[in-house]
């Protein structure tokens, strides 16, 4: 049997990580308030489902955005034919404007620097292809999103070198940590081409302060390496301190702009992962040019460009959405963290993102990653919650878990909290305060069974992946 490629047969796709294992447990037994009340609740998927009614209303009121009014159908042909990799001008303008608004109007983005990609997943791979050759390296602060191992390395051959951040200082990215990582790369004979930061952070849910950002910009300029800022959670900052983008910092400090690139997407801020709207924004003309050619491999569907262009050009809608989204996230975050603290579970203080970085170190039998895995299996199999273990984020210290809170309705949240509470009661020998935040009545909203245009396994709240990637990885 003739071989296929090494890339295809290896495990660079990264799906053997426990991050994806948990999804399997969920998929084989997904929670449903009526049909499967004992099923696993998905808390390992960073989705933003809190503002759909708000968005849906806009979509219903603007049929021309979906190309279906009489005049809309006449636009169909033009849209269906549009495959220019520059992207629709109105799409780029709308996205640039949106990015500016999300940053409080403090920066303006140039629509001509906006390059499309197949989601942020495609954007990251594209940036890696543009900036580094196989065998070269990017520095990435830990803990980081597990998908980076696939997105930045799998087909590109680029190595990732972790910048180790520690809980002792709330996982801050220090100069010392950056230098240490850079040295480590040098010792391993790896040429460092760039530093990738995610701000706001996944999985921490925190933002980088001005000083840290300035320090980072200084560092990359000194080493003459690229800085890639993944800002896909920019609009999920629901509380002070205010978000500071790289695009703002470079206005304030001396910087070689050819080194600065931003990755963005509408999957998190707007909750549209299915529409595959990824963006690469680079201050480097050569990178814009190269990325644009590469975007042929992952253009945004013109039908979607049209919808997004219309939606994000509606200033009134956008302004209200940004406010509404923050309010909903704040509300959910507050309730969730308060409830957890009342049963003795702490989390890293955060003000952004769709998740919290939960601290379960004291529940570990011992300070090891094996113990973390044991605890994780208990949480999945007994508590029936899919949370993501810190080790899958390359966290240096065992005992941390990322728990998503924005991908479910209020009632499912209640059930999840109840399970955690019950578990903690059983776990703690000591009495836990009975004062729990419990809603007066558990309104069982009947989540309809979805029609069969989706997989029969898909019910609400659900992971959009009906069959575990792990199952596929084994075939």
């Amino acid at each position, binding site marked *: 049997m003739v071989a296929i490629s090494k*890339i295809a047969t290896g495990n660079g796709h990264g799906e053997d990580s426990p991050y994806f294992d948990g999804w399997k447990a969920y998929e084989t037994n997904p929670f449903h308030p009526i049909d499967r009340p004992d099923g696993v609740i998905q808390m390992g998927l960073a989705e933003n489902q809190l503002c*759909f009614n708000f968005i849906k209303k806009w979509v219903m009121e603007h049929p021309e955005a979906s190309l279906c009014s009489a005049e809309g159908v006449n636009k169909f042909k033009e*849209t269906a034919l549009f495959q220019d990799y520059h992207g629709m001008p109105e799409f780029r303008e709308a996205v640039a404007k949106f990015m500016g608004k999300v940053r409080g109007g403090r920066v303006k983005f140039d629509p001509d620097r906006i390059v499309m990609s197949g989601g942020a997943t495609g954007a990251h791979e594209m940036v890696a292809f543009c900036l580094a*050759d196989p065998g070269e390296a990017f520095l990435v602060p830990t803990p980081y999103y597990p998908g980076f191992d696939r997105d930045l390395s799998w087909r590109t051959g680029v190595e990732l070198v972790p910048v180790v951040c520690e809980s002792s200082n709330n996982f801050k990215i220090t100069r010392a940590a950056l230098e240490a990582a850079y040295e480590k790369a040098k010792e391993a004979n790896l040429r460092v081409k760039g530093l990738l930061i995610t701000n706001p952070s996944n999985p921490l849910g925190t933002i980088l302060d001005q000083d840290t950002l300035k320090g980072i910009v200084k560092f990359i300029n000194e080493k003459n390496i690229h800085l890639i800022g993944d800002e896909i959670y920019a609009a999920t900052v629901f509380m002070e301190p205010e978000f500071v983008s790289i695009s703002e910092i470079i206005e304030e400090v001396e910087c070689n702009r050819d080194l600065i690139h931003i990755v963005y997407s509408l999957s998190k801020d707007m909750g549209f*992962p299915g529409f595959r709207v990824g963006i690469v924004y680079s201050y480097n003309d050569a990178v814009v040019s190269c990325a644009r050619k590469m975007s042929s491999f992952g253009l945004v569907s013109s039908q979607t460009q049209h919808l997004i262009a219309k939606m994000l050009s509606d200033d009134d809608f956008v302004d209200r959405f940004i406010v509404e989204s923050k309010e909903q996230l704040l509300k959910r975050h507050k309730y969730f963290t308060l409830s957890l603290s009342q049963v003795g579970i702490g989390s890293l203080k955060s003000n952004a993102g769709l998740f919290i970085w939960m601290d379960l170190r004291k529940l570990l039998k011992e300070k090891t990653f094996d113990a973390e895995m044991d605890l994780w299996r208990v949480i999945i199999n007994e508590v029936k919650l899919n949370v993501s273990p810190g080790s899958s984020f390359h966290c240096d210290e065992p005992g941390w878990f990322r728990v998503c809170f924005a991908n479910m309705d209020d009632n499912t949240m209640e059930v999840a909290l109840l399970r955690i509470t019950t578990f903690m009661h059983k776990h703690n020998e000591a009495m836990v305060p009975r004062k729990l935040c419990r809603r007066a009545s558990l309104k069982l909203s009947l989540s309809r069974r979805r029609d069969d245009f989706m997989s029969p396994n898909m019910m609400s709240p659900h992971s*959009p992946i009906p069959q575990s990637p792990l199952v596929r*990885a084994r*075939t």
Partner: protein
Amino acid sequence: MLSSKASCNSHGQDSSYFLGWQLYENNPFHEVENPTGIIQMGLAENQLSFDLVESWLRKNPDVMELKKGGESVFRELALFQDYHGLPTFKNELVEYMAKIRGNKVKFDPNNLVLAAGATSANETLIFCLADPGEAILLPTPYYPGFDRDLKWRTGVEIVPVHCWSSNGFRITMFALEEAYERAQKLNLKVKGVLITNPSNPLGTTMTKEELDHLITFAVAKNIHVISDEVFSGTVFDSPGFISILEAAMDRNLENTDVWSRIHIVYSLSKDLGLPGFRVGMIYSNNKTVVGASTKMSSFGLVSSQTQYLLTNVLASKRFTSKYMKENQKRLKKRKEMLVSGLKKSGIECLKSNAGLFCWVDMRHLLSSNTLEAETKLWNQMVCDVGLNISPGSSFHCSEPGWFRVCFANMSRGTLQVAMRRIKDFVERSNFMGRIKMNYQQNMSSLSRKLLSNWVRKLSSPDPNEHER
């Protein structure tokens, strides 16, 4: 500072194929606003049957509004990012693909992997089948985009399989073996052969014989066969279309090794004329390839909004049957218009039965049988005559003088203007050619030299002249 991929030109965009587009972009023809502009005949798009799709949409506004049974499915679609794709969409796609093949082949939706256009599908397949430095054989002439799609980021090499006009550019066993040996001499490990069937740029479907050669060759050399069948729905004349899988089934190869080395690439950009929606796919009976390419599709999934729209369009069987029939009829008619128009100017086309273009023989218009002469003629066609047609060299054709001319991406009126321009150009060239011949026979060498300078000046006419 940047990667070598960013700094080199393996993106292939310095090809005349793309340069022609740029020239067109700078001066695009418009019947009213820019009647002397360049007519785009270098873009293989199908614009002939949109009215049929638009009429379906008008009757089904729910679908575009992202509704089902009156209720919005916006949320479900916005969240749907499963790289396995919408199951109903894949079911419809495999049925449609089978229909195109006269239901002689049945496809399993579990073996179908979605991608962002055939561009992404081809690249992903190469990433799955070959390592950097390995090679894929490609019969010439071939689509210029392959240089980017198959090589650029994958690091895989292309080794051309030379085909010649003497036998209608058919793929012979000899040509395949010759290419394989050439690859060996270059120390390149051949992992597969990629064919486009129906062919771009030839517009022909492969014969049973050719397909058999390919399969026999793939068995003997233990390599993969990738069949890019993106134009399979554009076959408008006999002989009919035979898919590679059908040919393999005819030889009862379903339970043999080679069955899992045959892969098909398809897309909705050509038959349905929807290139903007980025709907491409890979079909493979090889579970490992399906698994790996499914994961890779994360880098270029199809928008769920688009998957939903097209699920509904394809589910309407009456519509798809009507569309297929009518579309083929219109393509045939339009192709015949181009062929007869060119014939009136003394220009022949390769006999074709598919595609959105003709492979046009302009060898007799070359000043010499060279690449330089072809490039010169191409320059004249784009800049003086105002037609962006694509030179054979950009398709790696081994013989100069052939051009690909598209006919399905414009109105009848525009095609008529194009035919008139060619006629004028040819008449002018013939006239100048005759004058040159007469005088050269009768004049001394000095006079000849003076005359050829004058002729050269005259043969670059004022761009406004061709409208007369």
